[in-house]
């Protein structure tokens, strides 16, 4: 894939990729922007190379999920080891929602985000990929790095839990 093709395809995915980055960063907008920039950098400089084994969208989402995990790990390391910031650079993201830059949420979306926050990380990931990004469960399994059976279980249990939580919050 030529650099121009890569940029074009990334541009087409940009809005959904940002949504996925938001989900990976607990809906912290500045953290999501940072993760998305780091992911694009990996894709543009060739550190993450698309080999055609999955769809391009699945591949990009996988890169974003891995980058978000790396950023979280670095933030944890920076907090726990003195002088680690010398090697890792200044802290950009700590994974926690930043009230100043958080999304201005309507009641319904605030309820949804609150309910998603009470699910397990895997359930949250799979539900987001299926309902928000319109991926199939098989594609969501590839992005989340789990088997199809595991993704199905997370999907069914997560959906039931989400429905219960949304009902509880609306009462």
């Amino acid at each position, binding site marked *: 894939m030529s650099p121009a093709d890569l*940029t074009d395809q*990334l*541009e087409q995915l*940009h*809005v959904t990729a*940002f*949504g996925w980055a*938001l989900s990976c960063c607990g809906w912290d*907008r500045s953290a999501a*922007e940072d993760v*998305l*920039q*780091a992911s*694009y*950098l990996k894709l*543009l*400089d060739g550190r993450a190379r698309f080999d055609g084994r999955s769809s391009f969208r699945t591949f990009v989402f996988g890169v974003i999920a891995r980058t978000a995990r790396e950023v979280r790990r670095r933030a944890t390391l920076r907090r726990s080891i003195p*002088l680690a910031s*010398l*090697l*890792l*650079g200044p802290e950009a993201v700590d994974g926690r929602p930043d009230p100043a830059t958080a*999304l*201005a*949420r*309507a009641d*319904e*979306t605030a*309820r*949804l*985000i609150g309910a998603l926050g009470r699910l397990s990380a895997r359930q949250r990931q799979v*539900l*987001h990929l299926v*309902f*928000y990004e319109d991926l199939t469960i098989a594609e969501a399994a590839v992005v989340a790095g789990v088997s199809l059976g595991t993704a199905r279980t997370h999907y*069914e249990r997560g*959906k*039931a839990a*989400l*429905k219960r939580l*949304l009902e509880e919050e609306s009462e």
Partner: protein
Amino acid sequence: MNERDDHHVKQAFEALRREATEVTPPFASTVAAARARQGVAPRRGALGLAAVLVLAIVAMVAVSTWRGPRGGRLEVDLATVRWQAPTDFLLKLPGDELLRSVPQLGPRSADRRTL
């Protein structure tokens, strides 16, 4: 969960997607910021690595030149030192001294009439 419930969840996610779309930064600015990081990240990493190396070298030099609280090297005459293991007592047998001395046989022992 039936299709109606699925529809309800999907609607909630669609509302979330609409809000997220409104706050999505432009693609061009995201790529520009990513490319700007490209130049900064290696420099920052190299600087950090250099700082850690300097600290490590300073620590090594300090350890190798430190001569202890009295300023000199502590010399030990090994010929005068007898090291005793903490478990040496396990090797001592009851009546061990009998094995280290030679019993004396002869008139003196017979006079005692110990038999």
